[in-house]
């Protein structure tokens, strides 16, 4: 008897998680559209993109594409860059040199 799950079992286990993530994304986007201030929008977009990182990584496992993990790293860095640029703009009124 083998405890190890088969390939189709693992793929099904991964696919079963995706609806929870998609529900969370819709809720994040509702907050991003509603605002009411610029800081709320940026905070929602920030959390949204950190979770898109996870989504892309899980899709990489499902489709067996190693290159999608590289995309996940870029998403994480992009969300941080958005945070820092908006913070800089709010504080000083310019984007910096």
């Amino acid at each position, binding site marked *: 008897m083998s405890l190890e799950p088969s390939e189709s079992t693992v793929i099904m286990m991964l696919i079963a*998680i995706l609806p929870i993530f998609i529900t969370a994304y819709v809720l994040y986007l509702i*907050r991003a559209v509603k605002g009411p201030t*610029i*800081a*709320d929008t940026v*905070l929602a977009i920030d959390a949204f993109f950190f979770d898109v990182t996870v989504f892309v990584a899980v899709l990489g496992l499902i489709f067996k594409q190693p290159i999608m*993990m590289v995309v996940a*790293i870029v998403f994480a860095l992009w969300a941080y860059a958005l*945070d820092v640029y908006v913070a800089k703009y709010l504080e000083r009124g310019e984007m910096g040199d």
Partner: protein
Amino acid sequence: MISAILIYVGWALLVVGAIADLIAAIGLNRFPNFFVRLHAATIGTIGGAFYPLLGVALIAFGAEFLGPYRFFMGGAALVTAFLVLLLAPAGSHALARAAHRSKVVKPEPVVVDHLEEDGGGE
């Protein structure tokens, strides 16, 4: 045997992360103002992104059907998890500080604001 343990532990981390993500998204919609919503956003980044990425890494290490590139996938997922762990709190902190100092967001209800009295941390 060891790969079965890796897959199940990784999947458990993914489930915990998905639930934390959903809770954070609900909280982001329910909380009253920006400084309270920061709390929900922290759940969404550490609980909803760091844990699932660790889970993805464990599944990639354990799932042998992914082929020889599975160690690359697991390693990249670990690096991403570490970056999220470092960058998400730093970004949230920078945004909160900027929002307070530029007075874009009014902190209310407020009892005492020491940061305001100190000149915004100058």
